């Protein structure tokens, strides 16, 4: 009987065209999608798709999506892309990194596929540090992957389910116990074809007492729309330390869903600095699960949005064990018709005593048409805690402006100076010197409006393949 009811319900569920597309893609290409899988992973995909069939994509009636309409995020003529991208030319020919003089080990993902020459798709160095494609890791190190893949992401919604069901590749990093990785790893994720929808799955595992610096860049090199649906799973074993920098500089038509879950063991330390400089729609979902005592985390973010861009930061910190400390600080400047959402959430479990949790979100609106929705939420079930949160929305300090202008600094410079000072608190947290200088420079250019102008510029400095077309408006001559 019950089955019948469920069947009926399922029949009644009406899918949107995009939902249908994903479901059809899954059933038509299942063998292709699961070509690298071990049996458990296969089952996981099927389960995720089953859940998706029932729930579909979230809509605005979902509490977590009430300020970001998921409807408009699918590119027109969307092509669900999960094929392997053959290695043809060097990455530097496709993409010029904005961060200069920066020594790092570059790991690149092109259109959702790990981009490297065949034999280098997965490497292991003398310390046992494994870096490579997740698809390859599934074949070469199935035990390691099995233990961690799909274990921690809470709040499975339609997008995460689709990722679990369809993601074929991504980055796999494993740092064994007691290893401190000297080089910074830099993941560069690029889309260079129009209208792609790609699902990327990254898995990062840090052993006991290990240390890693990771820079995660999302860039686009053309002006076409696209959808990147990414799930990152990060495991920090006891006393491990991860510094994670996210740099998001995409074109105005691309949507990035960046969903990160971090499992923190005892005494582990996590530092996230997320810089969202451009992007049609960026949604950063962070789930910091403090599952060990005395874990510590700093989650900072800076977003500078203009035009019709939309940024949505969902930061969830779960204090599941006593003695943990978390700091959230997000700052943003919104210009033109840009809109922003900050949803900070601190959850303190019963008996998670001696918790310190802080949360702050500050925003500057520059125009009448910019808007911000901020929701700093607390849910606390333990009494020996210190939790505080704050949010503010305002404009540039008039007194400070007056002070500067009185001393002969022109209006535009004074404005720049104050905006820059506002962002500086986050930028100075970057411990990698060249990266800090570059980001500082990018933020300055961004504040002057240079970066987004670059997007509209006809010269395509970063993409020499594209033809240079000058539109001449004859009416104006």
């Amino acid at each position: 009987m019950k089955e019948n009811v469920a069947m009926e319900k399922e029949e009644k569920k009406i899918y949107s065209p995009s939902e249908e597309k994903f479901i059809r893609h899954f059933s038509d290409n299942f063998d292709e999608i699961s070509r690298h899988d071990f049996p458990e992973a296969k089952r996981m995909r099927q389960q995720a798709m089953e859940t998706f069939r029932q729930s579909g994509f979230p809509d605005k009636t979902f509490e977590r999506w009430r300020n970001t309409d998921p409807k408009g995020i699918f590119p027109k003529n969307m092509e669900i892309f999960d094929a392997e991208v053959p290695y043809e030319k060097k990455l530097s020919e496709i993409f010029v990194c904005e961060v200069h003089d920066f020594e790092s080990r570059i790991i690149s993902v092109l259109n959702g596929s790990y981009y490297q020459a065949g034999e280098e798709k997965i490497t292991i160095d003398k310390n046992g540090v494994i870096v490579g494609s997740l698809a390859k890791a599934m074949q070469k190190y199935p035990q390691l992957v099995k233990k961690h893949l799909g274990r921690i992401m809470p709040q499975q919604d339609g997008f995460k389910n689709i990722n679990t069901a369809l993601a074929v590749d991504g980055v796999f990093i494993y740092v064994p116990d007691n290893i401190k990785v000297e080089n910074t790893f830099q993941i560069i994720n690029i889309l260079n074809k129009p209208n792609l929808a790609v699902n990327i799955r990254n898995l990062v595992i840090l052993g006991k007492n290990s240390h890693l610096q990771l820079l995660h860049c999302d860039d686009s090199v053309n002006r076409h729309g696209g959808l990147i649906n990414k799930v990152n799973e990060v495991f920090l074993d006891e006393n491990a330390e991860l510094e994670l920098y996210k740099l998001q500089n995409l074109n105005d038509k691309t949507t990035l869903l960046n969903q990160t879950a971090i499992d923190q063991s005892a005494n582990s330390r996590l530092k996230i600095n997320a810089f969202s400089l451009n992007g049609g729609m960026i949604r950063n979902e962070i789930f910091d699960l403090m599952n060990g005592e005395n874990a510590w985390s700093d989650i900072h973010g800076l977003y500078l949005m203009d035009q019709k861009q939309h940024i949505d930061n969902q930061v969830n910190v779960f204090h599941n064990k006593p003695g943990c400390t978390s700091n959230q600080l997000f700052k943003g400047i919104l210009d033109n018709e840009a809109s922003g959402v900050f949803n900070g959430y601190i959850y303190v479990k019963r008996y998670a005593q001696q918790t310190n949790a802080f949360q702050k979100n500050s925003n500057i609106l520059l125009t009448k048409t910019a808007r911000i929705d901020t929701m700093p939420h607390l849910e606390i079930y333990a009494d020996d805690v210190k939790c505080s949160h704050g949010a503010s929305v305002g404009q540039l300090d008039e007194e400070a402006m007056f002070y500067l202008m009185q001393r002969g600094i022109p209006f535009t410079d004074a404005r720049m100076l104050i905006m820059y000072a506002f962002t500086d608190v986050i930028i100075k947290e970057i411990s990698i010197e060249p990266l800090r200088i570059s980001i500082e420079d990018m933020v300055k250019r961004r504040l002057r409006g240079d970066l987004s102008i670059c997007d509209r510029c006809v010269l395509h400095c970063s993409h020499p393949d594209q033809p240079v077309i000058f539109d001449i408006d004859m009416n104006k001559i």
Partner: protein
Amino acid sequence: MSDKKKDNHVLEEVTTGEYKYGFVTKIETDQAPKGLTEDTIRFISKKKNEPDWLLQFRLKAFRHWLTLEEPDWALLHHPPINYQDIIYYSAPKPKKELESLDEVDPELLDTFSKLGISLEEQKRLSGVAVDAVMDSVSVKTTFQETLAKHDIIFCSISEAVKNHPDLVKKYLGTVVPYTDNYFAALNSAVFSDGSFCYIPKGVRCPIELSTYFRINAANTGQFERTLLIADEGGYVSYLEGCTAPMRDENQLHAAIVEIITHDNAEIKYSTVQNWYPGDKEGKGGIYNFVTKRGLCKGRNSKISWTQVETGSAITWKYPSCVLLGDNSVGEFYSVAVTNNYQQADTGTKMIHLGKNTKSTIISKGISAGKSNNSYRGLVRVSKKADNARNYSQCDSLLLGNQCGAHTFPYIKTENETAIVEHEATTSKISDDQLFYCQQRGIDMEKAIGLIVNGYAKQVLNKLPMEFAVEAQKLLAITLEGSVG
């Protein structure tokens, strides 16, 4: 060791503390049959001799209610409410028209004196006009003469429907339309009685208006409807206080309060709510789902909400201000205390629509026992609300490691000239403060009382004198020494 013993003793004392105001008054009631149908609504309307337009209003609301589902977004857990198992109308049988206090039912007078609000005493000493609502119908109204001198209308809403139909028709449902939410639709369909107050142009009400609600008779949902209007330049301070008798079954309470202020008018609305919170096992208690909203319609108008919430098993209440007039001001001061298995999800909404509008939110939550206390608030600055200013502060105090304190602010800003600030902290009573007090010979229980009272002072100070005393007493009863 001895400290711990003392704590346990104190804890026990508090958790076993009986609800002081739990008693049942035996008065014959005139009841509607159980359940909710269009017939029930016609019955209520007929009983109250209502004009047809009001019956139609109720029916429209009822039909809309049928299409709605009970909201589940609040952080509240309760067994499903059977709306067909509730008596929607119950009124003390009127004996005859009353000339003086002597003619009031002696049992009723006794009830009031048990509550500490003897009408006689109030009448003679405090100068507060009391419109006592016993279950659903107003029984006795005092100080009508004083009010009449200023042309102030202060009566039950059923009387207002009879005597001032134009005013009621003009304002009823304009701030909280029946389509607003599930409980507002329910109330609009079945509201039994409540208070109506109209302050004419340029009149400052010389006395503080007050009404006491009491939920009596088992299984009676009480659905008050309050409508306050201050015309241009008017001012009134209105007090609402509640106590309810001890009952095992949950009682549903869904009220609507609508406030309208015109140009330069001001209304202060203060509440002390101490309904039966259920016993220490979480059994029984009032379910309180209230929609309270004020509309600052005119320029320079002001609405101020002050609430002390100590009772009810479940509180779902968001007194709001819609700041429509330019330069209007909205204020919200709240102390919410929960103990045992009580659950409160309360807060406010400040909707800035006019230019230069200001709002202040001060919310103090205190949770003890196994209770959960949430602040949920919205501050919205719309596109046209230039120079809007908001300051919010929501603090939570946790007493004991079994309770929860939650904060869910929503801030939506669409105007670049807005300045919106929100601050919140959650902590337990500081050991340093306790140590300081105890070191100076103040015992644990008193020290906690002192600290909690100091913590809530900012809000309690906003209450009118008579209420402030009662509120402090309530805080003491609910919390006295409930932590170690």
